[in-house]
């Protein structure tokens, strides 16, 4: 069963320089919310930003990860 810390680590590994906060929405280990801050998102549409995060998990989304709610943003002050 995936854990919030596992998801956080996978996001931060796949998107170097990003920071992620992941919560288990239901406590059941299958509905998560991830807030991801990364300068990789700069200039991308919301769709593209969310796809970058979904792509970290591939087929796990819809599998062991039933739901992944995503909020993306770029670091305050822009890319460093």
């Amino acid at each position: 069963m995936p854990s919030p810390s596992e998801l956080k680590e996978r996001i931060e590994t796949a998107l170097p320089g990003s920071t992620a906060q992941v919560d288990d929405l239901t406590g059941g280990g299958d509905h998560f919310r991830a807030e991801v801050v990364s300068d990789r998102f700069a200039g991308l549409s919301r769709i593209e930003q969310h796809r970058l995060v979904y792509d970290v998990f591939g087929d796990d989304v819809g599998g062991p990860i039933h739901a992944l709610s995503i909020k993306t943003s770029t670091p305050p002050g822009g890319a460093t």
Partner: protein
Amino acid sequence: MTNEEIKDFIDNAIGENRVMLFLKGTPQQPACGFSARTAGTLNALDVKYAALDVLPDPRIREELTSLSGWPTIPQLFVDGELIGGADIVAEMYETGELAEKLGAEQPAEPEAAVAQTTPERKAPPMQLENRLD
């Protein structure tokens, strides 16, 4: 029904309906909180949309995801283009972008408008007959 026919059906649904929502359940009886929120948002904006329940056949979701490259349900398409899932729709609604894109009027209190939208209060939106059974 073959997978090819399901794919064609989805293609046509996206092409023929300016606002097309794929969800779990129906707008009147959504089967998932994310689908409920997205349908509620469209209802709050009072736009006409077509909806297709992905639950009757797992292949609907498989074909939709392979076509859109988007792994989760709901999925909202406008003018043939994927707008996003529940999170993006909610964000765009709050900022007024969604109302603008749909040519709808932004409610004065957007969150209250979604919360008030219950199946009983609103005329049902246009619905696609689900021909995938």
